[in-house]
């Protein structure tokens, strides 16, 4: 047969040997998908969570972004359309499922945020399980960002220096600080005190409205 005339037994034998060796070693090589298989030190994670070293505040994150913290990666794990509406400057949208398998930079600092804090906290766990050490989540989520970076309400009794630093940070991100009567608020309003019910003239107001209608 014509096919037989072109045969080179030497090459065939070499390829067969490669296949046998490759197949035999595969049996003992272990899982090929170890990259996405994480393991966690449960005790260590519990300690980190208990000592509140697992998250950042919106103001801390804002300062990192403004000061150009080296290798900072801000990951937005909300839906595409929500990301398009509004996101923290410099953030990348990454769906939660993607967190489990995206390529990682072990030297980077990752900050995750969602609308509230739950999904980001879950993403934090995934990245920890994948061996990333420098990973944080925004505890109050985008709510906290809008409230304390974009539209902070500062009491009139707050010292001038502190007010100036808040104003500078807010202006850097294009937000607006409001000074309110000291009787009606604390220096830094909590997410729970209903500060969002005061309408603010800002370009994120629409986003706030949308976010407040959702449960996350």
């Amino acid at each position, binding site marked *: *047969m014509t*096919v037989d005339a072109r045969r080179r037994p030497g090459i065939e034998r070499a390829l*067969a040997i490669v*296949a*046998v060796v*490759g*197949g*035999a070693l*595969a*049996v*003992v*090589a*272990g*899982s*090929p*998908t170890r*990259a*996405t298989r994480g393991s966690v030190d449960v005790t260590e994670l519990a300690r980190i969570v208990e000592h509140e070293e697992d998250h950042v505040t919106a103001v801390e994150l804002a300062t990192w972004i403004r000061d150009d913290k080296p290798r900072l990666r801000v990951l937005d794990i909300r839906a595409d359309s929500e990301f398009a509406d509004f996101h923290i400057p410099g953030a990348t949208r990454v769906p939660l499922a993607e967190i489990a*398998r995206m*390529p*990682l*930079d072990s030297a980077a600092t990752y900050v995750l945020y969602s609308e509230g804090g739950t999904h980001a906290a879950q993403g934090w766990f995934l990245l920890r399980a994948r061996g990333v050490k420098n990973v944080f989540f925004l505890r109050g989520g985008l709510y906290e960002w809008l409230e304390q970076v974009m539209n902070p309400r500062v009491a009139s009794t707050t010292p001038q220096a502190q007010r100036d630093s808040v104003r500078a940070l807010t202006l850097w991100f294009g937000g607006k600080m409001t000074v309110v009567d000291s009787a009606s608020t604390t220096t830094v309003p909590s997410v729970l005190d209903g500060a969002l019910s005061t309408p603010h003239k800002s370009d994120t107001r629409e986003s706030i409205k949308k976010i407040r209608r959702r449960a996350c």
Partner: protein
Amino acid sequence: MIGGAPFYEFGRFGEGTSLVIAVLLGIAFGWFLEQGGMGNARKLSGQFYLTDLSVLKLMFSAIVTAMLGLFWLSWAGLLDLSRVYVPETFIAPQVVGGLIFGAGFATGGLCPGTSCVAAATGRKDGLALIAGMLAGVFVFGEASPAIGQFADSTGRGAWTLPQAFGLSYGTVVGGIVAVALGAFAGAEWLERRAERPARPMKVVA
């Protein structure tokens, strides 16, 4: 950095580039199928009479090559296996579809890919099979409201051999290499036997 491939999945190149690469790979695929004689219906149907098992050997060569490549690249961290597309399994419809496919393959002597190869080299049976294939696709599309329920039944999702057998990935890889080498040896033996047509076949007990 974990996982550099699949390049498209990780955004190493865009859709345009991936289409260009697809065309180049397609040309190479067709070229080598033709070089291997896979555009010839007579040669392919030899498979079903156990006289020429080139298809079996070609398929097992391709499977073993791709499998070992994927396994070891993934093992070395160069490829993210979870990003490689795995077609979903639907047991009952795929058994029925496989039987229809096999009947068509044995009758026409070409499968969908090789019929394109045959048509590209000007073989009329290749063209006829492509026309039949398109007609079949059309009929299936028109009939899908009626048979859609069956076509979606017994779905197992992306179901791989390690999951089905409860074995480790590496064990399955080693097992398939062993099966492939056994199939090669068996195929060569059958072909040698078929090359002696003058002698009446003797049953050796």
